[in-house]
C-alpha cells in the first residue's frame, strides 16, 4: 500500500514550509529514514526523512512551493502501485500552494495579505461570520473570550468598534486624501460615483492602514520570517497585558567572576559571556518564583515543570530567532555557557533543529549588545515573561554614602499582568538582581 509523505509541523506556530529541494526523483528507490527532501520554514531549515522504504511513486509539490503543514508532499510505495485518487492534486488542507519565489517577486498589497494561516480560530458562529464579513474584519486579529477562546459576537463587535476601518476612511473627502501628483485629471476621474469609491476604498483597507505608495517609493516584499515576527508581535500584544518593570544591577562580582574564569572556560572551548550569568540568575529566580514560569489558560494557570529558557538571537537583517535551552535548571554554568554558545552559533548559521526553537517557558533578550540601555520587550507567547538586558556601562553609583564607579546594567522584565501583579513581578526581578549582585566568587 502506498505511503504518504506529509509536510510536518516543524515548530510551534510554524504552519507552513517551503520545499527547497527534492533529494530523490520519481522512480528512485529510498530506504526508510533516508533524507527525502529539504524544507525551509520561517524558523528552521531541515531535511525530512522518508517515512517508509520503497520507491518514490510521485512527487506532488514542486521545489520552491510553500505548503501548509499536513499537505501531502509525495507518495512512496512499490513499483507499479496505484496512488489513491490519482495523486495529481495534493490533498492540501489549505489552498496556500503558492510558489514562494513567485510570491516574493509579484508581491502586491493584496497578495501580501494572502492567507497566512496562524491560529486555529475554532468555531466561528454564524453571527460572527456575518459581522466579520460586513465589516471586513480579519478574525485572526480578534481576541476570543468565549469557550475555548472562541470569538464571540461581543468580541467581534468590540473589535469593530475599536477599529472603525472602511467607513471612517471612506468618509474622507477626496480633497483631503493625499494627492498622487496628477493634478489635471478630468473631473469625472477625480470624483467618481460615491458608491464606487466607497466600495473600492473599503476593499483596499483590510486590517491595517497601509501607506499609499508615492512615486519613488520602493516596495520590499516581506520575507517569511519578517511576516512571522510581525504576526507574533501583534498577536502577543493582543493576548497578554504587557507591563514592564525595570531594575538595575551592579555587575561587579559577576565581572570579577567572569574575569577569573574566562580563560578556564576558553580552554574548554567555551566563551563565557554575560548572557550566561543572566541565564543562570533567571533560573534561580524562576525556581524561587515558579508562577513566573507559567502560561495563562482559561482553565487556570499552567505552571511549567521544566525551565526552558529561550534566548532571543539576532540574525541581523534577516530578523530574529529564539532557540531554547531545555532544562536550563539542570545545567552548570559551564553547561549553560556551552548551550548558549552552541545555539547562538547554529542560529546564525540557520542550522537549528525544529525542536530547538520550541517549548520555551521564559525568554531572555540581550538588547544591550546594540547599545540599548533598557527596553520594553514583547512577551514570547504563551510565556508569562521576558527579561531584557541592557548595555553594561560603568556608572557612578552611591554606595555607603560614597561615590563609586561600578559596571551597571538595567534589566527590564516585561510580564503578563493577567498572571503577575507589580509586586510579584518585582520580587522575581529583585531575585535576579540579588543573584547577580551577590555572585559567589
Amino acid at each position, binding site marked *: 500500500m502506498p505511503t504518504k509523505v506529509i509536510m510536518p509541523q516543524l515548530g510551534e506556530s510554524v504552519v507552513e514550509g517551503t520545499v527547497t529541494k527534492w533529494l530523490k526523483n520519481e522512480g528512485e528507490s529510498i530506504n526508510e529514514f533516508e533524507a527525502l527532501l529539504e524544507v525551509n520554514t520561517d524558523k528552521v531549515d531541515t531535511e525530512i526523512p522518508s517515512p517508509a522504504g520503497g520507491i518514490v511513486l510521485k512527487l506532488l509539490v514542486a521545489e520552491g512551493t510553500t505548503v501548509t503543514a499536513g499537505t501531502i508532499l509525495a507518495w512512496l510505495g512499490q513499483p507499479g502501485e496505484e496512488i489513491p485518487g490519482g495523486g495529481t492534486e495534493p490533498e492540501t488542507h489549505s489552498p496556500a500552494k503558492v510558489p514562494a519565489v513567485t510570491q516574493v517577486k509579484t508581491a502586491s498589497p493584496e497578495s501580501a495579505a494572502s492567507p497566512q494561516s496562524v491560529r486555529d480560530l475554532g468555531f466561528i*458562529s454564524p453571527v460572527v*461570520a456575518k459581522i466579520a464579513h460586513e465589516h471586513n474584519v480579519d478574525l485572526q486579529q480578534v481576541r476570543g473570550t*468565549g*469557550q475555548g477562546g*472562541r470569538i*464571540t459576537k461581543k468580541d467581534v463587535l468590540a473589535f469593530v468598534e475599536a477599529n472603525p476601518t472602511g467607513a471612517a476612511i471612506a468618509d474622507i473627502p477626496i480633497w483631503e486624501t493625499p494627492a498622487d501628483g496628477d493634478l489635471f485629471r478630468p473631473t469625472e476621474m477625480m470624483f467618481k460615483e460615491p458608491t464606487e469609491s466607497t466600495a473600492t476604498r473599503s476593499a483596499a483597507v483590510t486590517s491595517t492602514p497601509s501607506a499609499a505608495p508615492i512615486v519613488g517609493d520602493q516596495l520590499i516584499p516581506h520575507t517569511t520570517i519578517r511576516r512571522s515576527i510581525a504576526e507574533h508581535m501583534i498577536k502577543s500584544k493582543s493576548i497578554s497585558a504587557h507591563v514592564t518593570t525595570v531594575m538595575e544591577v551592579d555587575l561587579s562580582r559577576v565581572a570579577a567572576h567572569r574575569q577569573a574564569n574566562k580563560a578556564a572556560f576558553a580552554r574548554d572551548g567555551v566563551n563565557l559571556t554575560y548572557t550566561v550569568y543572566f541565564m543562570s540568575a533567571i533560573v534561580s529566580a524562576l525556581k524561587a518564583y515558579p508562577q513566573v514560569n507559567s502560561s495563562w489558560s482559561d482553565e487556570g494557570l499552567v505552571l511549567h515543570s521544566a525551565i526552558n529558557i529561550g534566548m532571543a538571537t539576532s540574525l541581523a537583517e534577516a530578523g530574529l530567532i529564539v532557540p531554547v535551552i531545555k532544562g536550563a535548571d539542570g545545567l552548570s554554568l559551564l553547561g549553560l555557557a556551552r548551550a548558549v554558545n552552541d545555539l547562538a552559533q547554529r542560529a546564525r548559521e540557520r542550522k537549528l533543529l525544529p525542536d530547538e526553537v520550541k517549548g520555551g517557558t521564559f525568554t531572555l533578550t540581550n538588547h544591550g549588545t546594540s547599545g540599548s540601555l533598557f527596553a520594553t520587550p514583547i512577551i514570547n507567547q504563551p510565556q508569562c515573561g521576558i527579561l531584557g538586558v541592557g548595555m553594561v556601562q560603568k556608572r557612578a553609583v552611591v554606595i555607603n554614602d560614597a561615590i563609586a564607579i561600578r559596571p551597571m546594567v538595567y534589566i527590564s522584565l516585561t510580564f503578563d499582568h493577567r498572571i503577575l501583579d507589580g509586586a510579584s513581578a518585582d520580587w522575581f526581578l529583585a531575585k535576579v538582581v540579588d543573584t547577580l549582585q551577590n555572585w559567589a566568587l
Partner: protein
Amino acid sequence: MPEMTLIDAIRQGMDEELAHDPNVFIIGEDVGVRGGVFRATMGLFDKYGPQRVMDSPLAEASIIGVGIGAALYGLRPICEIQFADFIHPAFNQIINEAAKMCYRSNGEWSVPMVIRAPYGGGIGGGLYHSQSLEAFFTHTPGLKVVVPSNPRDAIGLLKSAVRDPNPVLFFEPKKGYRLIKGEVPEGEILVPIGKAAVSREGSDVSVFAYGMMHYYTLQAAEKLSGEGIHVEVIDLRTLYPVDRESILASVRKTGKALVVYEDNLTGGYGAEIAAIIADQAFTDLDAPVRRLAGPDVPAVPFSHPMQDWFMLNPEKIATAIRDLVNY
C-alpha cells in the same frame, strides 16, 4: 394600582366578562356553589346565579361538548377543567370538533369558547395533578393557546379570550395562583392574543418562557444581573399563534437563545421556538439554541425530592443561562 394574586385576577377577569356580556357563562366541576377547587369562581355563583355559573357532572367530555354546543348557539362559554391533567377525556371534543368547526363549515360556524385549565407541577400533586399539556394543543391549528404569567396579563388575556371568536385554551400556572402577585392597573385591560412581551430587557442572552417558568426566569435574571449578566426575558404569553417577530427581534439583538419550559423536553413546546430561531435567525446566532425543560419521564413524581429533581427552579435556570452566556 392594587396588587393582586394570579387567582384573584382570573376571577376578576371572569367577573368583568360576565358583567360585560350576558352571553358569557361558566361551566365546570364545582365551579358554582363551591366556587371552584382553587376558588377561581368564588362569589360568582351568588352574583350571577346558577344559569351563568353552572356545576357540571364529573365528565370533561361533556363539559366541552356542552360548551361547543352553546358556543355554536351563540353563547360564550368559559369551561373549567379542574386540573389540566383531566382534559384527556375531552380531547376528542376539543381536537375533532372545537378546533375544526370553523374550517369544516367554511367559516359559517365558529366556537367562541374558553377552556380554562390549571396546569403544572411543584405543588405535591403527583401524577394526576401536575402535568403540562400545552404541546398537545399547540400542535392543533384552529385552537388558540394562552398561558398568562402575571395578574395583569391574566385579566387582559382572559377577557380577550372570551371575546375571541375561536376556541381558546387558557392554561393557568396553578403553583402561581397565590404565589405570583402583581399590580393591576385600574380600568379595562385587554391584552391581545398573539403578542409576546419583553418582560426584562438585556443584551447577553434571550430567554423565552411562559407561565410559571417565566416567573422563575425573571428571578434567575435578577440574580444574574448581580453577576453582570444581562438577560433579556421574553414572556411568550400566547403559544399559538406564536409571536415570531418578537422572538426573532430579541435573538437578533442578543445572538443567544434559551427556551425554558416545564413540560418534558422531547417534543415539548419549546422545541418549536428553537426551530423558529434556527430557521429564521441562523445568521444571527452566536451559540446553539438551547432548551431547558423537564426530564423525559412519564410523570411529575409525587415524592418531594423526586419532584424537586423534576421541576425547574430559578437556580437551574440561572445555571443554564450562565452556561450559554459563557459559550
